[in-house]
């Protein structure tokens, strides 16, 4: 097992290095002259030269790369053009909000998607199975920005049931002031026992969570169904049935466990998808997280911020894939063999 862990960690390091190189390539080679992007199209030759010197763009490429990678190692991702702050400190500020949002959405997706997939596999070939499949395909085919706007129109504008934007009702600040713990209202309120704010924050979460969870629910249900059916034809399932185990055990215990691996590896993929979708959902629902930050960076052509976000999300993704590999090795002993 420890050899397996070591080799996976080494592999992940290699990929991280590649990821850094690729972001560098995108930043320096593709858009033509980055100095123009920085200084704007109307900048004079002197201004451009000043920018080149400031960012080391007059250096040879390999030297620029060394500077870039040294910066990353020291946690320096450059200065954001639209906030004028270091990208690193911006990211530290916005990341927790997004991770909480995405985390809740993914838990929600697993709680709905796995039972939906189980039910579909259980009734394979029936109308119920077909219905589950159609629902799943609708979920994965949904353009998330459109879904988010529709949810707003229906539940806020038409029905008035749920709040449209923000993280909680800031009018509560005067009656039950919120103390920051990690900077995410819903978590802060829970940790400090601030129930009015917690209730408000929870209702503000409903629509963004649905919008982000749609794709993961469909994907998890389909993969769960497929993985279970793949197992159900196996001899070990016939064996436990012949030993007299109930169908509940056959599905929930003997078929689900070997089927968990595809589901777990899907979680990494779905996490990446949900994180990128949170860009859109956050900007639609006005959440001050990584997504809103990224969308503003895109709108202002803030290259350092865009690349910082890309790099951080890619690193999170590599890390999550590593965790997934290790979890899989625990679930299924064949993986580590």
């Amino acid at each position, binding site marked *: 097992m420890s050899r397996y862990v070591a080799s996976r960690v080494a592999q992940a390091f290699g990929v991280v290095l590649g990821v850094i190189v690729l972001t560098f390539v995108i930043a320096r080679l593709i858009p033509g002259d980055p100095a123009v992007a920085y200084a704007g199209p109307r900048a004079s030759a002197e201004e451009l030269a000043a920018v080149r010197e400031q960012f080391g763009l007059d250096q040879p490429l390999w030297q620029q790369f060394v500077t870039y990678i040294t910066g990353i190692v020291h946690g320096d991702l450059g200065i954001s053009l639209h906030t004028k702050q270091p990208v690193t400190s911006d990211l530290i500020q916005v990341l927790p909000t997004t991770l909480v949002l995405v985390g809740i959405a993914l838990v929600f997706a697993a709680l709905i998607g796995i039972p939906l997939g189980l039910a579909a596999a259980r009734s394979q070939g029936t109308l119920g199975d077909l219905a589950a499949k159609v629902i799943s395909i609708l979920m994965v085919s949904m353009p998330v920005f459109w879904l988010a706007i529709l949810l707003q129109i229906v539940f806020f504008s038409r029905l008035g049931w749920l709040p449209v934007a923000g993280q909680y009702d800031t009018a509560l600040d005067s009656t039950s002031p919120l103390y920051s713990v990690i900077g995410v209202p819903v978590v802060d309120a829970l940790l400090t026992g601030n129930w009015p704010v917690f209730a408000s924050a929870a209702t503000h979460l409903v629509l963004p969570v649905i919008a982000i969870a749609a794709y993961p629910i469909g994907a998890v249900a389909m993969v769960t169904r497929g993985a279970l059916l793949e197992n159900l034809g196996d001899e070990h399932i016939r064996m436990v049935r012949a030993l007299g185990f109930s169908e509940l055990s056959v599905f929930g215990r003997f078929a689900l466990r070997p089927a968990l691996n595809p589901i777990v590896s899907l979680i990494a993929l779905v996490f990446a998808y949900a994180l990128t979708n949170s860009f859109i959902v956050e900007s639609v629902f006005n959440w001050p997280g990584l997504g809103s930050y990224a969308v503003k960076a895109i709108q202002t052509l803030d290259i350092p911020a865009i690349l910082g976000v890309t790099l951080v999300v890619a690193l999170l993704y590599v890390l999550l894939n590593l965790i997934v590999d290790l979890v899989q090795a625990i679930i299924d002993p*064949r993986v580590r063999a």
Partner: protein
Amino acid sequence: MIRVRDLQVSYGDSVVAHIPELDLAAGQVLGIAGESGSGKSQTALALMGLTRYAGGSVTGSVQLGGVELSTLTNKQWRAVRGRRMAMILQSPRASLNPTITLGALFGRTLKLHGVPRAERQARMEQALVEVVLDPQILSRYPHEVSGGQAQRFAIALVAALRVDVLIADEPTSALDVTVQSEVIDVLRGLRERHGTAIVFISHDLAVIGELADQVMVMRRGEVVEQGPTSQILHEPAQQYTRELLLAVPVIGRTR
């Protein structure tokens, strides 16, 4: 012990096995021979009441110790499977759940069938001794044991459950010749010690001959010939049986 009358297994419109008559007494071994697709494995599934899970249906009568099985509900079937009847399968390692240890499967099965916690360990160890396996195997996963070990483990599981009837579907086909004879010895021991009746299914008449008291030969879902082993092996009435006897045993897949 087992009495079958006019058993018919079908998937949709096609009939895959038809057994007009079959009787098996306690402690007896019945061999079912035939090529792939002859319906012998489908017969095994039908006897265990598992056809429905493969998407097929069964008509006719199967009795176990005087109790009619064909009308049992799913719940009643569970009191038969693992308690009165059990089954071992062709690919020994694939028939064990890859994600749990052999001991965990063994323990859960004994628990399912009401063996008190205090007795379980002793039962497991005793059963493993019968099949000549080291009890340490209980901490292993299926991919960590050999095919022969896995098949002997499956037999130990059945022995510990003390079932009346064991259905062995091609239990030796995936194994080397030397390992085959080990498994046959273990099955013989099971019958002698516990009086377990065995339905032994194989495409290989020579292997069946080592164990069976009577033999049934099947082809394309129908019974070709049925009778005492010596008669079938030495004076086969049907051309098909003679061909089967002459055929070089081929280790292959059967469904």
